[in-house]
């Protein structure tokens, strides 16, 4: 039996490794974006790819998001698998026209004749003290567009597995990378990475009996922390990490809420018109008779992302989650 060298690795390293392995396995995988070549990306996720695979496989493009995604469409039409990097969440907006009008619907408009296997990597979310336009949670926009898959990892192993699965997908995938987890570490073996997770499966990160926290991406560690803290108050919280927002894993979520009878959806994007509303509605529709309290949401405020010195007041933290959990005693109180 060979022993595997398990070492601490960051999420950023796991993402880079996923890109590298995908490029090595499949010559049609091409990485393109701003500063992805020589610099290795502003978060260094693409570090070393240009050196190993050459400028034609890992390309520094002109500074133009619509151009990056638009040319990726043409590349995919010719049989390549482009992986594009949007430098920051709010800088992906110039590419929305291409994303929504073409990437998301090419399969549909050609009646299945032509699909676009493009992976769009978007660093998203706050908590890193970024200035304006560097901290948006844009997942609701992507979720609202049929034809796209929307996934987001919360662990080092998932970062690798989900990115490999996204690149292998024959459909376009918006791959949201929680910025503040780039430097999160876990013991991980880069030479024998965990098997590729299928897209669309949620996972129970922590089993519990008294309520379910439904969350994803950057809020997963916060929820796990909240679950630990809640033990002191007699709550045994289950934490479900969605991993994939589209497709949505109703099965795992529903099974969990039916077990616990109570649910809180946690995310840092704004609550109004946000993912939590959709999730709460789905849970309510499927679990109404099992619910002992309304499904609650803990979300960011409905404000433009705040300046760094105020962001801690905006981001859902452990206390806000625990307050919501306390409100789940609604039935007893009323």
């Amino acid at each position, binding site marked *: 039996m060979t022993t595997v060298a398990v070492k601490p690795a960051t999420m950023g390293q796991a993402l880079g490794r996923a890109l590298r392995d995908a490029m090595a396995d499949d010559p049609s995988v091409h990485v393109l974006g701003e500063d992805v070549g020589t610099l290795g990306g502003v978060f260094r996720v693409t570090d070393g790819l240009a050196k190993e695979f050459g400028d034609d496989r890992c390309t520094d493009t002109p500074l133009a998001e619509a151009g990056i995604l638009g040319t990726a469409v043409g590349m995919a039409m010719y049989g390549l698998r482009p992986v594009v990097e949007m430098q920051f969440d709010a800088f992906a907006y110039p590419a929305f026209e291409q994303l929504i009008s073409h990437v998301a619907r090419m399969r549909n408009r050609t009646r299945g004749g032509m*699909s676009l296997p493009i992976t769009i990597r978007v660093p998203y979310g706050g908590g890193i003290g970024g200035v304006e336009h560097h901290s948006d949670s844009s997942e609701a926009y992507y979720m609202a567009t049929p034809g796209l898959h929307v996934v987001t990892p919360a662990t080092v192993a998932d970062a690798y597995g989900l990115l490999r699965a996204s690149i292998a997908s024959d459909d376009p995938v918006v791959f949201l990378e929680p910025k503040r987890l780039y430097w999160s570490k876990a013991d991980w073996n880069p030479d024998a990475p965990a098997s590729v997770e299928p897209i669309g499966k949620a996972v129970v990160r922590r089993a519990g009996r008294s309520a379910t926290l439904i969350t994803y991406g950057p809020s997963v560690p916060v929820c796990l922390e909240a679950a630990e803290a809640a033990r002191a108050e007699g709550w045994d919280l289950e934490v479900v990490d969605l991993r994939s927002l589209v497709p949505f894993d109703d099965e795992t979520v529903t099974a969990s809420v039916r077990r616990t009878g109570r649910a809180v959806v946690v995310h840092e994007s704004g609550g109004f018109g946000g993912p939590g509303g959709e999730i709460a509605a789905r849970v309510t529709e499927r679990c109404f008779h099992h619910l002992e309290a309304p499904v609650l949401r803990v979300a960011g405020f409905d404000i433009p992302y705040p300046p760094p010195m105020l962001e801690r007041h905006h981001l859902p933290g452990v206390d806000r989650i625990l307050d919501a959990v306390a409100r789940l005693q609604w039935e007893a109180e009323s």
Partner: protein
Amino acid sequence: MTVMEQRGAYRPAPPPAWQLRTDPAPLLPDAEPYRVLGTDAARKADQELLLRLHGELVRGRRYNTQATALTKQGRLAVYPSSTGQEACEIAAALALREQDWLFPSYRDTLAAVARGLDPVAALTLLRGDWHTGYDPREYRIAPLCTPLATQLPHAVGLAHAARLKGDDVVALAMVGDGGTSEGDFHEALNFAAVWQAPVVFLVQNNGFAISVPLAKQTAAPSLAHKAVGYGMPGRLVDGNDAVAVHEVLSEAVRHAREGGGPTLIEAVTYRMEAHTNADDATRYRKDADVEAWQDHDPILLVERELTERGLLDDDRRRAVREDAEAMAADLRARMNEDPALDPMDLFTHVYAEQTGQLREQAAQLRAELDAENEPDGAGR
């Protein structure tokens, strides 16, 4: 002394980027659009090509009138006619080889048909039975594109990918004068020039973007001049002169195929009909302006040359007209058949593998359809 006058006192070593990389002079378009028909050069035009262009132009014109008639019968939701612009569409498409790709806009059905696309498939988008009526890979024609200029970066990406794979492929990307104001036009040209992608951009300047004349669209000397800023050649051609269009396009395609990079071509033409059948062109232009272009009709220009050379007698005219009529009759007959649509297709082509959400919604529609089809379910 002003600050401007003081310049020169401080002289840092210029960074290399300050040095001109490309001599702009060879990139600049000529002041006048390139013409062949009606000049002495026309005598040298290939006889076969002239006859072929003539036949295709007459077919194209007939296609336009037939499709417009189909809108009046409610068979097409809308049709943007390219009457007057047939030379740009057809002569450009004929400059491509089989392995090349065409990236058309919504107005470019004739280019697609000239490239071999089934005339009915080209109208699927406009009829409304599906968004694209053909498999793009089969014809190497991207779906007719409705959002302006967004197909241009696709052309660049495809041409770039083909070159990376070592394939001998050129992409022809078509756009209107209004479309040149869109950001995607800029981004596509810039990418193409930086990557030296084998792309030819063809702007059909037909004078208007719906109602807005070119003077309100751009302050550039010509649309072809825009090429210089990207570092690619700009070319102006008479878009009603099919031979000139074919020559200029063929040269640009050859240049691209040989690794010379992209070219921006502006074809100066005129839209003889309204923007679409739904538009009222009398609001923004005078009949006299339209009439002035009638003497410069693309079919007329070719016919003059053919007649002068003794290549167009009554028999030939009749044969060409009969061929166009046969095409129109076939188009009419097939468009008058009701397309067979399967509503379940709504869910079939969203993802490679249907999501749980879509499976549920498909089941809902299935049940609704079954209820409709039950003998006593009609009133439901």
